[in-house]
Structure formats: structure tokens, C-alpha cells
């Protein structure tokens, strides 16, 4: 840790941009932690990290394991990215972030394999795939690269626990309805047949769809109806971008200033142009 701090030039004396300033100090720390839990919940509100959300939530134990593993990777990589944010040149930051994240994922895999072999078996290839979880890279790019290590750790913890919460909620519903158990213990009375569809892939999509609809309903209650449907992926390729930053959402201050927004806009223009040219040549179906 001290080595990384020493590598960061001028870190000691330069005023930290992230230091939660003056009177609003305490609330700002709290806000950075709690925003990930509900208001910006990664899975249910930002639609990030949907692959593990759908794939491993067939049993509550898997959900908890996956959530905590992701939280660990999030916190560690956000802290390291934040410490190195002034050393890493902007042009190679994404590969650098991926390398940092991959190191922590490898560490997590080794720990899980050594101490929780059953969980390792259950999570299978989804454990190494934390590397490409949009939440982790997204938070590194959007938050940790612009804030100090303490705030980044809090942000990672909040986002990670919010993600764990949605995984547990989702897996509790699917395990209860699909197998009639919770954490492996029989809960449903035996005369209620388990609905096997719930633990199949189709059930995963359906439960997530209903959960997101419920969260939209909670958000809408009392609020003015907006033009854009909540949770609608933008019409362009933005939704498929690993750094899904809600660039089209004017309320998100994170991206408004960064170069990422500009990059995405240029990328979208390129895609639109490419598609238009293709349509001219081949003719769309």
C-alpha cells in the first residue's frame, strides 16, 4: 500500500478532490456508501452485471457467495485504481484497470477454491467472469479514477452490497418457488409442488423482469411520469457497452464532465453512420 502511495506524485500535499468538504462531510461519506444499496443499485436500477444476476441465482448460497466475491473484487480494485489514478496514463487506463481487476479475481478464485470448494463447484465459470462484470470496470472508470481511496472503498462496498442484496433477493425467490427450500432447508409445505420453471434459465429472465418492474413501480410512486421509460436501454449501442454509464441520463453527473461521454457520443455517431451506409448498400430486412 505504502509503495503505491509513494508512486503517486504529489499525493501527500495536493488537496484531495474527493475529500468530503466542510459541513456536509459526514453525509457525503454516507451518501457514497448508501447510493449503491438502493438508489443506484447496480443490478436492478443500472442494469449492470446482469449475466451473473441471472446465472448463479438458482440457490441463495450461490447468490451470497457470488455477491460477496464481487464485493471483495470491487472494493480491492477500486482502492488500487484510486491509488494509481495519477500514475496511469489516460490512453491505457482501461487495459490497466482490467489487469488490476483480473489480479483480484484470480486471488478470489484461489481463496474460494481453497476454503469453499463446494461454492467453487457451484459458481463454475462465473467466478472468473467477474473480470468482465460491467459493475467492476464501470465503477473503476466512473468513480475510482476520479476519487480518493477511502471514498472509493466506500463506493465499492456500497455497490457490492447492493449487488449482493439483489442477488440474494433474486435467488431467494427462485429457490423458494423453484425448489421449495431456502438456504437448503425445506420451507414450503410439501403439498405445494415446486415450480421447476423458476430454476431454469427462463425463470431467471422472468423473475428479473418482474423485479425490475417492481423497482420501477416504487420509483414512479408519487413521481412525475417521465417521457423516457425507466430502465429502457438507449436506442444506440450504449446499452451493450461494458461501461454502461447512463450517458443519456441528464441527471447523472458522473459522466457529464468526463471524456467518456464524448467518446461514447462519437462512437454512437460512427455506428449510426456505419449502419446507414450498410442499409444503403444491402438494404435492410
Amino acid at each position: 500500500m505504502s509503495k503505491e502511495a509513494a508512486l503517486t506524485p504529489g499525493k501527500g500535499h495536493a488537496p484531495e478532490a474527493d475529500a468530503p468538504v466542510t459541513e456536509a462531510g459526514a453525509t457525503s461519506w454516507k451518501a457514497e456508501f448508501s447510493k449503491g444499496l438502493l438508489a443506484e443499485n447496480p443490478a436492478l436500477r443500472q442494469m449492470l452485471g446482469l449475466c451473473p444476476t441471472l446465472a448463479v441465482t438458482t440457490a441463495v448460497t450461490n447468490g451470497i457467495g457470488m455477491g460477496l466475491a464481487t464485493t471483495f473484487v470491487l472494493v480491492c480494485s477500486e482502492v488500487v485504481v484510486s491509488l494509481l489514478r495519477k500514475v496511469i496514463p489516460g490512453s491505457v487506463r482501461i487495459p490497466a484497470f482490467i489487469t488490476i481487476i483480473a489480479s483480484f479475481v484470480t486471488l478470489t478464485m484461489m481463496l474460494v477454491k481453497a476454503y469453499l470448494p463446494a461454492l467453487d463447484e457451484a459458481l463454475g465459470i462465473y467466478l472468473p467472469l467477474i473480470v468482465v462484470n460491467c459493475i467492476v470496470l464501470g465503477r473503476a472508470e466512473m468513480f475510482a479514477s476520479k476519487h480518493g481511496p477511502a471514498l472509493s472503498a466506500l463506493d465499492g462496498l456500497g455497490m457490492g452490497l447492493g449487488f449482493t442484496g439483489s442477488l440474494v433477493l433474486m435467488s431467494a425467490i427462485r429457490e423458494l418457488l423453484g425448489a421449495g427450500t431456502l438456504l437448503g432447508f425445506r420451507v414450503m409445505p410439501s403439498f405445494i409442488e415446486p415450480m421447476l420453471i423458476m430454476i431454469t434459465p427462463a425463470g431467471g429472465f422472468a423473475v428479473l423482469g418482474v423485479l425490475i418492474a417492481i423497482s420501477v413501480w416504487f420509483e414512479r410512486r408519487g413521481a412525475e411520469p417521465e417521457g423516457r421509460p425507466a430502465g429502457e436501454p438507449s436506442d444506440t449501442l450504449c446499452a451493450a457497452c461494458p461501461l454502461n454509464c447512463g450517458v443519456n441520463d441528464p441527471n447523472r453527473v458522473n459522466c457529464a464532465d468526463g471524456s467518456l461521454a464524448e467518446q461514447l457520443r462519437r462512437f454512437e455517431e460512427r455506428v449510426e453512420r456505419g449502419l446507414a451506409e450498410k442499409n444503403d448498400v444491402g438494404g435492410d430486412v
Partner: protein
Amino acid sequence: MAQYASILFSMILVNNFVLVKFLGICPFLGVSKRFSSAVGMGGAVTVVMVLAIAVTWPIQQLLVAWDLEYLQTIAFILVIATLVQLLEMVLKRFMPPLHKALGVYLPLITTNCAVLGVATLTVDEGYTYPEALVAGLGAGLGFLLAMVIFNGVRRRVDEAEPPEVFRGMPITLISAAITAMSLMGFSGVIEHLFGA
């Protein structure tokens, strides 16, 4: 021959990467609105998957030989990211028409979990080199199939008027659930056909 056909079809239908294994959900939901972009993305993913397997399989052998298996994740993700970048440059220089068709989707694939997933999966399954390549092709074609089917479903859904809270993502996910159900019918078919 039978074992290759078995791997190919089970990757496309039974273990479909998107609808059964939930890999590559982001592009599946994000780029499936238009037919041309669904096909373009599917094609690009197929090409990158086969190339990624072609590169990562030998690397895995090296890692095993040097007792460095724990570096697998780091090595694979970096190699795939570099490969995609390189592919875009080569296509741009030598095959402009193909670059026009696939190029715009390539940057999105770099951190797509489906590509890293197929590379990891072939290692876990202990496939030989040709088997691994066929598995990569199957996974890519399965992704393409899912994109095309789902594009058809989605164009109907966009015309419909669901309850307000279901508009957008929720109804898209629920139609994905119904699409996923259609693939459940294939489990067991492949074993029957090829006796694997």
C-alpha cells in the same frame, strides 16, 4: 466426426450461450432492436470467439507446461482484448467491406463475458484443439441464433402496449424468458442424435 457435430449442435441449441448460460446478456438486450445490428453483432462475436479460442488454447498449454495456470484469467482477458484491437486494425486495412459490416461492434466485444466464457469453458472441458475450435464456432452461432430469434420477438413486443411499469427493460426480459423456454425443448435431443 460425430463428436464434432455433437459439440457444435449442443453449443448452439442445448447450451446456448445467451439463453441457457446467460453469457453476453448486455449485447443481447442492447443490440437486438434492429435486424441488421443483431446479425452484425452475432457475426462479429462468432468471428472473435473462434479466433480467441485459436489463440487462447495454445496459451493455456504453455501455462500448463510452465506451471502458471493461475495466470489463466489475466492472460486470457489481455490476449482477447489485444486480439480484438488487432482484428479491427487488420480488417480496416485489408478488408474494408468486412470492417464496415463488423467493425463497429468489435470494441463492444472486448469485455464481453461470452468470449472469455467460451475460452474458459473449453479449458474446463478439456477439449482438444479442433474440438475447442468447433465449440467456439458453435457458441458464436448460438449467440447469432439467439440474437436473430430475439430480434423477431422484440419487434412484435415494441408494437405492444404493456402496463406502464413493464415498459422497456422488464417486458424485454419477460419476452427473453419465453424465448429461453423455446430452447428448453432441445435438451436431450443431441444425446439421442449423436449418442454422445
